[in-house]
């Protein structure tokens, strides 16, 4: 595989040509906020938090969906970028009813942690306070739309890794909702294998194990790489 050289934050680095810019940035140990990206799933480019500046380009690039190119000059952190990232997180917080204190993911939530790292201490936009139901019809898991940020990790893991494609998204714009089956209660879905991958990849408390109480969920994503390495490369991790 050929290698390209590019500049990230004034440092000349090299990266494999088929890698994403986000990968190259992360390989440099640079922390960059992401929500829809998850190692092992296809890239979506939806949350827009990983946007970076490229010299000579008037547009910002979503690094997760931008392949590295020879000679790119990239800035990952600037006042503009931090400001935009903060605004996006505020928009997400205002969009649904993210009440942290009773949330199963309080303390382990990726949205919460991104917000904290960006120093989001208040939201400048109207809380939309949508009246959203919870779907607790599944035997083992609960879907709480109030905490969903529509990152679609659940959609993707269900489709790409488990292969069931039980989860999808319906509606558009602000009315987009994660749905199960053909928008039927989750518990009635016959395609759902109950594998729980969606729950594990969900960055917030939108998907959680039934019966979990506040701060009780800790999610782990490593399984994704174990499964994929085993499936694709026949590398089995026994640990």
């Amino acid at each position, binding site marked *: 595989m050929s290698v390209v050289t590019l500049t990230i934050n004034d440092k000349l680095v090299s990266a494999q040509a088929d890698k994403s810019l986000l990968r190259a940035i992360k390989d440099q140990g640079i922390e960059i906020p992401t929500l829809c990206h998850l190692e092992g799933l296809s890239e979506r480019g939806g949350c827009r938090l990983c946007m970076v500046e490229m010299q000579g380009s008037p547009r910002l690039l979503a690094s997760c969906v931008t392949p590295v190119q020879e000679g790119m000059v990239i800035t990952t952190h600037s006042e503009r970028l931090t400001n935009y990232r903060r605004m996006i997180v505020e928009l997400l*917080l205002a969009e649904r009813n993210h*009440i*942290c*204190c009773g949330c199963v993911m309080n303390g382990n939530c990726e949205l919460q942690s991104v917000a904290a790292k960006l*120093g989001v*201490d*208040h*939201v*400048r936009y*109207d809380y939309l306070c949508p009246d959203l139901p919870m779907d607790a019809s599944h035997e083992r898991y609960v879907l709480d739309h109030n905490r969903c940020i529509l990152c679609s990790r659940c959609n993707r893991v269900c489709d790409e890794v488990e292969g069931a494609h039980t989860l999808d998204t319906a509606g558009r714009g602000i009315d987009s909702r994660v749905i199960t089956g053909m928008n039927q209660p989750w518990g009635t879905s016959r395609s759902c294998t109950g594998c729980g991958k969606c729950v594990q990849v969900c960055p917030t408390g939108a998907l959680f194990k039934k019966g979990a109480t506040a701060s009780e969920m800790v999610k782990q994503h490593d399984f994704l790489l174990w499964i994929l390495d085993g499936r694709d490369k026949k590398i089995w991790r026994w640990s």
Partner: protein
Amino acid sequence: MADRRRMILIIAYGNSLRRDDGAGLMLAEILERIWKERNLKVHRESVHQLTPELAELMAGDAISVVIFVDTRVIPPGSDSLRIEASRLASPEDFSPGMGHHMGPLTLMAYARYLYGKTPDAWLVTVPGIDFDHGEGFSDATAGALSKVGDFLEAMPRNWPLVESSPGP
């Protein structure tokens, strides 16, 4: 000696599930972050309400200043939308009509008379109007919170660590 006593103690109180009532807690986190970024020593206590044992903490050797952070109730439509700070008088001369609840002054008195310490103290308040159940803040409160920078700008340089008196 100055170094050892350079700890700022932030005591924030409020209920984060009653909308603006939790604004003090948020403001305290912001102040803590800013001060830590300036390499100041900060300890923050966020509590539902003030309780007597906080006095012991206030009387700690390392504490040089105590910042109480609270929500200030303002009538809707009021234009006093800024974060405000006022220096708390030393407990000898506060008004006798005070009630029995634990306010910052009561804690000051506790610290002084029970533990023999009177740290510098400030009450910093952020305005609030909406105390309904829920998280998040009203526009007025969110607006005030977004101006922490302006607030600090308006305070004396190095606040709250201004040398109160040359002292012995």
